[in-house]
């Protein structure tokens, strides 16, 4: 049973560029949440998708957007990258919105 998978593992981008990160949830899970983890900090909630709609959003600007597909996989898009967007981006899936969340290995984004 595959757990949560994310791609790519690492990514280097230049300021102003756009990036797309991908996540496949654990088998049987229908809810996907995205978190940003800066160095030395705990994960910060970006948004959550359920039934292909954004259900909740954390305190992140509109440059951060996402999508959930009919197979429950999800994408996180970040436009107009800033140096401060450099972080580990974590995807988590759950059986429903309030259940425990299972985390993927993350995508390490470096913005230069």
């Amino acid at each position, binding site marked *: 049973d595959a757990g949560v998978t994310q791609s790519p593992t690492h990514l280097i981008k230049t300021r102003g560029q756009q990036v797309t990160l991908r996540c496949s949830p654990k088998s049987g899970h229908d809810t996907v*949440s995205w978190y940003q983890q800066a160095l030395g900090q*705990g*994960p910060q909630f970006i948004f959550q998708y359920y039934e292909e709609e954004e259900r*909740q959003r954390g305190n992140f600007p509109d440059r951060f957007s996402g999508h959930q597909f009919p197979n429950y996989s999800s994408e996180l898009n970040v436009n107009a990258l800033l140096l401060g967007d450099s972080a580990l981006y*974590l995807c988590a899936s759950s059986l429903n919105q309030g259940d425990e969340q299972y985390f*993927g290995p*993350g995508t390490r984004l470096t913005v230069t």
Partner: protein
Amino acid sequence: AQSVSQHNHHVILSEAASLELGCNYSYGGTVNLFWYVQYPGQHLQLLLKYFSGDPLVKGIKGFEAEFIKSKFSFNLRKPSVQWSDTAEYFCAVNDSGRGSTLGRLYFGRGTQLTVWP
């Protein structure tokens, strides 16, 4: 908004010592509580969780945590640590009673535990 405090940023212990990591949260409503662990080079894994019932919950690898509602606390404990427990530990809270934020996890900044053999 909910906030989570982990007061110990780095804890250093010798093997067989006892461990207690503190976690406090701010919102006093109905909450679900979690401890996650991140071993070096690995992803976040769930150690234990509290949803309801017995406030003393047991998790994997001999860890346990006690929910004290009056103190807004959910401290993690282990009676005897091992070198393999070296990892970063995160406390997380989910406002289970607030529909608008259901499912959103609020994390503390983490505690790095180093165990010397």
